[in-house]
């Protein structure tokens, strides 16, 4: 039995599309079968507010679509204590919305109580693995559900590293019984930035643990790729997405855009391309799954 529901093809909800989304624009024909938007991913922290338009929009969207809560401030890898007040707020939001999935990032973003609002890379060491696994257990106990962690785009790795990122994920899932939000663009960006092999990366990810996939755009800034979410998905990432779908099958997909956000129909068209790429892969005989 699959660990995660197949949601189909969704979009990251952004303020620019609030009016369209509350009016029901882009509603598909049901989870996994739609020609439009099958579900929305919302940034958890944007809705940890008491009321007003954000909460109104969230309620309206939830009435029509499945929702996935995607956090950026869990700071699962920090040596700081877990932020219990934050977890209480996320738990309350889960109770209210009954999200299909809850995700955050494999990173750290706070130290000494200082929140840096970025996704800083972890060293992939045995010590970090034990630390993160213990914290994932505590978060899952608190929320009463399995969480998914996303591979961040990274620009630095550490001399202390003992494992590859994908191997770290595989071991973490085994120890903590969590899931993976696999960002295909981030795999591409990090592999380019560190000289990793993206095919080996995908092969090392435990397929049954992948709850959904992210797609986004990036830019090249000199000798590094930067994960900016301000462009359409590039051809190389589409190719890697096709490979990911062959490997991970029916995992849901979410298209993200955070800057230079186009009108909703343009994003729905890009989502349609994701749907077509996925359909083409799943129509073909499945490649033998590795790992």
């Amino acid at each position, binding site marked *: 039995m699959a660990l995660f529901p197949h949601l189909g093809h969704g979009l990251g909800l952004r303020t620019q599309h609030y009016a369209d989304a509350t009016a029901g624009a882009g509603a598909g024909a049901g989870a996994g079968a739609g020609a439009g938007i099958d579900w929305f991913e919302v940034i958890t922290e944007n809705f940890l507010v008491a009321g007003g338009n954000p909460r109104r929009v969230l309620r309206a969207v939830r009435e029509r679509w499945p929702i996935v809560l995607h956090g950026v401030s869990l700071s699962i890898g920090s040596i700081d204590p877990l932020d219990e007040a934050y977890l209480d707020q996320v738990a309350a939001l889960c109770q209210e919305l009954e999200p299909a999935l809850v995700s955050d990032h494999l990173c750290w973003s706070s130290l000494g109580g200082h929140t840096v*609002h970025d996704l800083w890379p972890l*060293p992939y060491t045995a*010590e970090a693995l034990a630390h993160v696994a213990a914290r994932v257990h505590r978060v899952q106990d608190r929320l009463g559900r399995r969480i998914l962690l996303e591979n961040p785009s990274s620009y630095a790795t550490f*001399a*202390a590293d003992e494992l590859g990122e994908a191997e770290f994920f595989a071991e973490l899932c085994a120890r903590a019984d969590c899931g993976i939000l696999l960002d295909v663009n981030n795999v591409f960006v990090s592999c380019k930035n560190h000289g990793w092999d993206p095919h080996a990366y995908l092969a090392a990810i435990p397929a049954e643990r992948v709850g959904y996939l992210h797609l986004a755009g990036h830019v090249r800034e000199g000798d*590094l790729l930067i994960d900016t979410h301000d462009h359409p998905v590039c051809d190389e990432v589409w190719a890697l997405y096709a490979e990911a779908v062959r490997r991970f099958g029916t995992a849901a997909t979410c298209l993200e855009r955070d800057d230079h956000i186009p009108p909703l129909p343009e994003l729905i068209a890009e989502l349609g391309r994701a749907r077509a790429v996925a359909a083409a892969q799943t129509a073909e005989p499945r490649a033998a799954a590795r790992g």
Partner: protein
Amino acid sequence: MADLAALQRAFHAACTGAAPLASALPLVREDGVSPARRLRVYAHAYWSRIAGALAADFPKLRALLGAEAWDALVLPYLRAYPTRHPSLREAGAELATFFADRGEAGHADLARLERARTVVFDGPDGAGPLSRDQVIARPPEALPELALRLVPASALVELSTAADLVWDALEDGRPPPAAAPGPRTVLVWRRDLTVIHRTLEPDEAAALRCVQRGASFAEVCEALGEVLGPAVGLPLGLPLAPEDAAARAAELLLRWLDAAAIER
């Protein structure tokens, strides 16, 4: 080999500017790109992401200061008041205090006003505003006991300068006036989904402070009587005649009801 805690402390210090970037270089692998270049991505992102959020929440203050001066203030602000909340929405919570610390009262006031508008924007939803018709439908003899509360998404902002006039000018695209000193009170509230603010007359400000604490209409009349006494032509120092205070309170009540500022 650095352990997790030592690595995080060194990385944090280098990328937030608390220590030279070079102090964390030995931690980072090269793999074809210099460690300094790699760390600079994080150091820049730390600053720029929060700067972007602050610019979005304080557009008038940024326009007043100019983009270059604004950018130059972000890092000193973050050093003085590091962000401690999971949401970027709270990044500007101490900006008014930061300017007050520097003795810049006009900038502090404008920050206070813009921050209040942000807080009210997604403040709590209430049961809905009390309408004029709902008040009129009550028996007249029950009016003194009518409990008045501001809608929950509201704030009374106390200013020491005319920062509200600066806000108005920037909103209208006019050159901003100098923020003249002098106490002023601004009511910020949310009507439907729109955030509105209005500068209050001194007696109205006193009455709304009373309402903010939770007051009946009779108590608002009493408060107005105390405030207006010396100023309406009665012998100096004597309180306002009760019927005049009641008339002014009724006028203000209708104003607040029509503005959808009183909670049902």
